[in-house]
């Protein structure tokens, strides 16, 4: 393939593209279940973005390396495709070469106590396996890993001449912080305009944010439906897909709105019929992190089939959002600052003080009638693992069982699926659940 020869840095990206095409054609598209058909649409959004990036590389069009929590509606409004240097771990559940890549990262000298997602991203950058963008928006939050990855990126010989901008995160959640971060976002846009030749039209931004607001309104409706007992959906569809539509591939697009409309429709039907992912919902659980994408099929289906344990809520399905006021430019910037810095998943818990670890648990346990709170304890969440005392105390006050597992969301060798199953089974039994 001539493209790979000219652009060897596309190798991994193209493999992922081919893999998801295969998944779509060979498995999901063959199912008639409405949820599966919606999954097809989810993957179509992914494939569309991948195609745009590949096209941009091939035909020298501008594109960005950025992140979900750096106001993706702006990129939609500017008609700029973007990809995440850290995306592979998020998509990991289907990627066949994941363990090889993790080993390669360790061999590079990155040890094994740094977050696997960060190690992988550093490996891809250093091994020239990440597309080289027109310009890069570097993430400096929520955790130490983020600025470190980008320090490596900045120094890398292939990336060092690519223009970069990194919005600086304040540590608090007050008005002053919002103003400060809104200022960083404005500077970010000026930077993107300068290096891509595209301009941000405020009317376009308003339209995009209005679409985005509609998506979020529908998402809220959907989450309300998940409060139902039994919950209309479990781990199979929900958080990760909503997140990928609203934050990653369809931020503020009409297709995104349509997708959410369909999701609400399907969920409403399930609620009407009183059905969910398992014949008998015995345990309603809150998984307070990303799904274990590296080994999701070896663990989550078992939770449902073995224990009737339904993942009613997870970190990325969490809905703390308010609508962005699009009536003035000022309000749009502040709204974007709030959504990306205070509300976006994982960022809202890990970026600043620990309050949201407690607040989110309190709200979710109450709203979703949660029977057990699980802190998966991913090996990369150093700040989260220093918050277990606070989470435990919060759960004690709510009289709800809490378990801290200790695992690697991407590397199943760290704590094997069998070990985790044992741990959870013992816990459920001891708590008299299921």
């Amino acid at each position, binding site marked *: 393939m001539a493209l790979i020869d000219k652009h060897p840095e596309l190798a991994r990206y193209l493999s992922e593209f081919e893999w998801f095409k295969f998944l779509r054609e060979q498995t999901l598209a063959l199912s008639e279940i409405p949820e599966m058909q919606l999954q097809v649409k989810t993957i179509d959004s992914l494939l569309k973005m991948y195609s745009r990036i590949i096209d941009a590389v091939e035909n020298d069009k501008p594109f960005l390396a950025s992140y979900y929590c750096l106001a993706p509606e702006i990129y939609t409004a500017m008609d700029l495709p973007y990809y995440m240097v850290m995306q592979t771990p998020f998509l990991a559940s289907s990627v066949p070469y994941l363990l090889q890549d993790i*080993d390669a990262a*360790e*061999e590079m*000298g990155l040890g094994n106590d740094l977050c696997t997602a960060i190690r992988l991203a550093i490996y891809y950058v250093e091994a020239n396996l990440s597309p080289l963008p027109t310009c890069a928006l570097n993430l400096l939050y929520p955790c130490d890993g983020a600025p470190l990855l980008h320090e490596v990126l900045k120094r890398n010989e292939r990336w060092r001449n690519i223009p970069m901008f990194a919005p600086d995160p304040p540590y608090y959640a007050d008005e002053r912080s919002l103003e400060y971060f809104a200022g960083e976002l404005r500077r970010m846009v000026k930077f993107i305009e300068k290096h891509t030749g595209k301009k941000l039209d405020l009317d376009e931004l308003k339209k995009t944010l209005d679409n985005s607001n509609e998506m979020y309104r529908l998402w809220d409706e959907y989450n309300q439906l998940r409060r139902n007992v039994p919950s209309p959906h479990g781990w199979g569809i929900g958080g990760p897909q909503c997140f990928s539509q609203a934050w990653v591939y369809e931020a503020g697009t009409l297709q995104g709105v349509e997708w959410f409309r369909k999701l609400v429709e399907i969920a409403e039907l399930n609620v009407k019929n009183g059905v969910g992912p398992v014949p008998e919902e015995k345990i309603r659980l809150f998984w307070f992190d990303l799904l274990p994408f590296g080994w999701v099929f070896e663990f989550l289906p078992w939770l449902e089939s073995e224990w009737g344990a339904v993942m009613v809520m997870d970190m990325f399905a969490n809905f703390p959002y308010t609508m962005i006021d699009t009536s003035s430019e000022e309000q749009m910037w502040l709204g974007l600052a709030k959504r990306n810095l205070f509300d976006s998943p994982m960022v809202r818990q890990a970026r600043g003080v620990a309050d949201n670890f407690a607040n989110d648990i309190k709200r979710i346990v109450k709203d979703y009638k949660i029977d057990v709170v699980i802190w998966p304890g991913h090996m990369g969440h150093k700040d989260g693992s220093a918050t277990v005392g606070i989470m435990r105390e919060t759960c004690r006050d709510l009289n709800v069982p809490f378990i801290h597992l200790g695992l690697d969301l991407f590397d199943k*060798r*760290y704590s*094997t699926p069998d*070990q985790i199953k044992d741990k959870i089974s013992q816990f459920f039994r001891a708590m008299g659940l299921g």
Partner: protein
Amino acid sequence: MLVGGCDVGSATGKAVVMKDGGIISWEIIPSTTKPEVTARTVMNKALEKAGLSSITDLDYIVGTGYGRLKVPFANENISEITCHAKGAQWLLPTVRTVVDIGGQDCKVMSLGENGKVLEFVMNDRCAAGTGRFFEAMARVLDCGLQGLSELSLQGRNPATISSQCSVFAESEVITLVNEGMDLADIVAGLHASIASRLNSMVRKIGLVEDVVLTGGCAKNDGLAKALEDKLGVAVKKLPLDPQIAGAIGAALIAAERVSKRPVKAVPGKEV
């Protein structure tokens, strides 16, 4: 010129006596709880074998290994990293990567042309990939260390051992035995997982041929084969017992101290 090298490890003590650039005797004994006692005992045995009557017959002695600070008769102590590298390359001058598996640690050294260590990486935090681990497995499977090696070579479909920790790996192995899996496949899987770890360590400092194994576990042919499979290159055999590589290196350095110049590589010269 008569010199001695004494390698006091956690599991075994080794001593080598060299005369004019060639080995005249060597000995390996199980370690006692007191490194000084181990050192004296193994050195005396080696001297006896060499037909010498006393430690004072030696012009210079270098101590190495985990207990190197407790070799009372040593003129000097040198790290086992330097000694294993030196000894291995004296035995096989084409050596450039040494994988040393000791009683309770394992390390990889990359060498330059004159036995000089360029880089090294050590694992001394956990038992995985060390002599202790193999002993524990031999106990669990009731087959002895030689048995482990043989079984490993017979395995046709090596099991996948996913636990990184040797304690958990032991549980995993017991589970597989109870499930009726073929013992040879289990043991082959164990060796494969250890070889993976060693491979990872080798890659960290870069693989350059020739590669050799030193230390007690080097005599495990199953491990050597598993390592070859992972590295994709041959693991060469040393002409003498690989367990004494450290003591040889120590003796060579002793010789350098006396002659005040580097000892030329006289491959595996045993007098």
